[in-house]
C-alpha cells in the first residue's frame, strides 16, 4: 500500500514536532498594542499578525486560557518564530515563559521599554525580518502522516452537511487515524443527544468527561434562558428533514468517523498522543478555529453547507462543501466541492478520495481559499468577565 501523503515534508522544531509551514507571527499580548503588532506585520511581508482581543483585566481560569492559547500559538508547529508585542514587559513575559519548555524562537518587544511607537516599530521590524530571512533558509525534512494533527470543524451547516460533507470528513479522519495520525474535533454543544453513541467510543473516564463538557455548554445556554434541547431541532432543521436532536447531533458527530475517543482537551491544549480527541471549545467558527490551532492542528478540514468563510491564521483551513447551490455561488471560498455526490454523480468513496487529494496539496504547501482571500482571524474565547 502506498503511504498516505507520500513525499510529505515538514520543518523540524526544537520541541521535536514538524511543521508544514514556516510562518513568522507577530502576536499582540493585549489589545492595547494591536496597532504596533499590526504595523510590524504590515512592514514585513511573509509575517502574520495575531491580534489580541483583550489581555487586560482578565483573571483566574479566563486569564489562564488566554495565556495558554497565546503561548501555544507562538510555538505552533507551523510557526518558525514569534515576536510577542506588549505594552509593559510583564505582559509579554508571562506568555514567553509558557513557551520556554518547548524551546522555540520567541522574542519580546515592549512599547514602553522601546520608548514609543516609532522606536518599537523599527526594532520589531528588524527582529521579524531577520526571522523571516532565517525561516526561508531552513530545510524541510521528510515527515510521516503519523506526525500530523488535523482539526475537524463544521459550521454554516445545512442539510447537506450531515449527509455528505461531514461523513466525508469522517471517512478521512478514519484514514488519518489508521495511519497513526491525530485528529481533533470540537463543539461539545453540538453533541447533545449523542452521549450514548460517544459512550460506546470511549472509556468510562473519557465518557464522563465528555458528558460533563456537553452538560456545561447546555447549562451556559440555560443560564442565558435558552433550553437547547427545547429549541432543537429548529424550524429550519425540521424543514430540512432533521427529525430529532439525536439526528441533528449525529450529523455533526459524523465528521469524527468511527475511531475511539482518547480524551477531552481543554481549550487550546495539545493532545498527548495520537488518535481522535474532543476539544472543549465553543462552536463559533473563529474562536473554535483559534482553539484547534492552539491545540497544534497542522491543518483543519472545515465542512460547511451555506459556507462559513473563516480560516485559521496558522493552520491552513480547507472548506468542504456539498451543497450544489453554495458550490456555485460561493465558489471562491470553497476548496473541496463534493456536490457531485449530492447530484448522484459520485459516491462517498469518491468524496473521500477527493478530500484526501485536496488535503495532500495543502499539506505540501498549497494555499487554501481562506489564505488567499485573507479570511484568517484569531479570537480567544472568554471564560469569565473582565474586572
Amino acid at each position, binding site marked *: 500500500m502506498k503511504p498516505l501523503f507520500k513525499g510529505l515534508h515538514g520543518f523540524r522544531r526544537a520541541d521535536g514536532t514538524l511543521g508544514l509551514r514556516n510562518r513568522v507571527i507577530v502576536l499582540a499580548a493585549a489589545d492595547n498594542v494591536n496597532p504596533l503588532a499590526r504595523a510590524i506585520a504590515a512592514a514585513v511581508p511573509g509575517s502574520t499578525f495575531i491580534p489580541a482581543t483583550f489581555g487586560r483585566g482578565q483573571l483566574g481560569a479566563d486569564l489562564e486560557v488566554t495565556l495558554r492559547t497565546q503561548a501555544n500559538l507562538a510555538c505552533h508547529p507551523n510557526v518558525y518564530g514569534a515576536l510577542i508585542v506588549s505594552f509593559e514587559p510583564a505582559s509579554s513575559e508571562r506568555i514567553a515563559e509558557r513557551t520556554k519548555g518547548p524551546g522555540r524562537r520567541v522574542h519580546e518587544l515592549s512599547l514602553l521599554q522601546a520608548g514609543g511607537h516609532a522606536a518599537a516599530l523599527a526594532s520589531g521590524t528588524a527582529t521579524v525580518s531577520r526571522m523571516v530571512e532565517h525561516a526561508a533558509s531552513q530545510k524541510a525534512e521528510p515527515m510521516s502522516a503519523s506526525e500530523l494533527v488535523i482539526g475537524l470543524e463544521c459550521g454554516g451547516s445545512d442539510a447537506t452537511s450531515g*449527509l455528505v460533507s461531514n*461523513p466525508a470528513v469522517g471517512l478521512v479522519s478514519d484514514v488519518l487515524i489508521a495511519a497513526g495520525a491525530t485528529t481533533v474535533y470540537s463543539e461539545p454543544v453540538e453533541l447533545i443527544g449523542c452521549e450514548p453513541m460517544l459512550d460506546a467510543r470511549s472509556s468510562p473516564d473519557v465518557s464522563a468527561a465528555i458528558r460533563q463538557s456537553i452538560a456545561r455548554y447546555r447549562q451556559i445556554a440555560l443560564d442565558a434562558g435558552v433550553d437547547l434541547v427545547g429549541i432543537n431541532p429548529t424550524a429550519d432543521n425540521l*424543514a430540512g*428533514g432533521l427529525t*430529532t436532536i439525536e439526528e441533528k447531533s449525529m450529523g455533526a458527530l459524523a465528521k469524527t468517523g468511527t475511531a475511539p475517543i482518547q480524551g477531552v482537551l481543554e481549550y487550546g491544549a495539545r493532545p498527548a498522543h495520537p488518535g481522535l480527541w474532543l476539544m472543549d471549545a465553543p462552536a463559533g467558527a473563529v474562536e473554535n478555529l483559534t482553539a484547534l490551532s492552539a491545540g497544534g492542528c497542522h491543518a483543519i478540514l472545515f465542512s460547511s453547507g451555506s459556507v462559513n468563510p473563516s480560516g485559521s491564521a496558522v493552520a491552513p483551513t480547507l472548506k468542504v462543501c456539498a451543497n450544489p447551490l453554495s458550490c456555485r455561488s460561493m465558489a471562491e471560498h470553497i476548496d473541496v466541492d463534493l456536490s457531485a455526490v449530492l447530484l448522484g454523480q459520485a459516491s462517498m468513496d469518491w468524496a473521500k478520495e477527493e478530500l484526501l487529494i485536496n488535503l495532500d496539496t495543502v499539506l505540501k504547501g498549497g494555499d487554501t481559499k481562506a489564505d488567499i482571500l485573507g479570511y484568517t482571524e484569531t479570537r480567544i474565547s472568554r471564560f469569565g468577565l473582565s474586572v
Partner: protein
Amino acid sequence: MSKIALQLAASDCVASVLADVQQGDVVAVQRHDGSVQQVAAQAHIPFGHKIALEDVRSGAAILKYGVPIGCATQTITTGQHVHVHNVRGIMGGCSANESAAQEVAAPPAPRYDVVALQAWVERVSLASGFSQSAAHDMAEALMDAESSGVATHGLRRLAPYLQRVASGAVNAGATPHVSGAAALLSIDGHNAPGVHVIRVAADAVAQRAQHLGASVGLVRHSNHAGALGWAANRIARQGMVALVLSNGPALIAPPGSTVPFLSNSPIAIAAPLGADATFLLDMATSTVSRDRVRQAAEKNAQIPLGWALDASGTPTSDAVAAMAGSMLPIGGPARGFALILGLELLSGVLPGALTDILVPSKDKGSIQPEGIGHFILAVDPAHLNDREAFIQRLQQLEQRLVGQSGSGGGPTPRLPGRRRQQLREQAQQQGLVIASATLQTLTQIARDTGCPLPAAREVSS
C-alpha cells in the same frame, strides 16, 4: 433522471433523498455497501428528508448513521416518509436503545393470557389479606391498565400496593361506607385499598345518577387508586358521562418555590361513544407521569428538561435529582399550579380528605394511611332523553377531527381512549408481553404468596 437517496450506514432503515421525491417515484437508494435498492415512494418526500428502506414496527428504533436517532411511534412501511409525524426522539421520551436491544435479543418475548393473569392477581391479593371484592377490584384495575398500554399503573404497581398492605399502612380487608340520601354522596374509604374505594364509590355514584340524572360522590380516607380512567370508564360504559379526580402526596412546588406542595392530581373524563367504545381522557397534571421519572431514575438515565426540578428548584435532566425535587405542572408553573389548586379543592378540601403537604408521602417511606380524597361526578344524558343524540354529536365531532388529518402531514388525530381500546383488544387476543423488570417482581410475589404465575402461552404472531 432517477431520484436518488443515500443510506449512511449499513444498518440504517432509512435513507435521505437527494432531490424532492413525489408519491409513486421510484427512488434509487445507494446503499452503504455499494449496492442500489429501488424503493417506490409512498408520499411526497422533500429534499434531505428520509425514506423508509424497510418496514419498521411501532416502537422500534430508527437507525441512521448506524445508531438510533429515535423510535417509530407507529408502524412505518417501506417507501414512507419518516419524520416527526411517525418518529419520536430519544430525548423526546422514546427508548429506542431498549427497542434496539430487544431486536437483538432474538427469541420472541413470552406472552401471558390476560384472563389467567387477572385471576392470579386476584388470588395473590386474597392471599395478602384483601377482601373478596377488593381483590377482584385490584385484579381488574391493574389488568385494565396493563392491557391498555398504561404499564405505569399496571402490574408494576402490584408489589408496592402489597407492601403498603404488609406494612399496615393500608387496611386490605376494610369496607368503604357510602352515605347520603340524594344526589350528593359521601364515601368513607376506611383506609381500604384505593382501587376498591374508588370502584365502590363510582358504582354508587353511577347508580344514583341513573335515578336522578346526575350525582356527585365525595370520597375521603382513601389511598392511591391506580389509573382513574378505570373507574371513569365503568360509569361511561353504563351510558353516562364521568369526571373523576383524586389528590395525592405533594410533588409539585408553587411557582418560585422549591418545596412540593400539591400532587400532580390526575383527572379522568369518560363518555360513551357507541357500541363498546368510550371516550377516555386519563392523565396526571404534571408534564409527564411521576412513574416515567422514577423509571429513568432506576436506570440512572437522563430525562428531558421541562419534566422536573431538582431540590434547589433548578430544571434538571438528572432523574435521580428530579426524584428528590419536584415535578413541573402542565400549562406552565403559575397556571398549572392554579389548576391543581382547583382540583385539590374538589378532590381533597371538599370531601374533607387530607390535602397538600398533610398527605403522608409513601415515597419518603411513610407507613401512615394516605387519607387522600376523590371527586366523582356522573351525568346521565338519558334523563333529558338525549343519550343517543349525545353519542351521535360526539361521534360527529370525532369524524370532523379525523377529517382534518393530513393537513399538517402529522399522524391522524383521534379521540383519547381509542388507542387504549385497540391495545386492550389486542392484548385479549394475542396475550400480554410483560416488561422483564416487572416479571421479576411478579415471580418474587408468586414465591412469597405460594401462588404460582400462570404459564406463558404459545402465541403465533
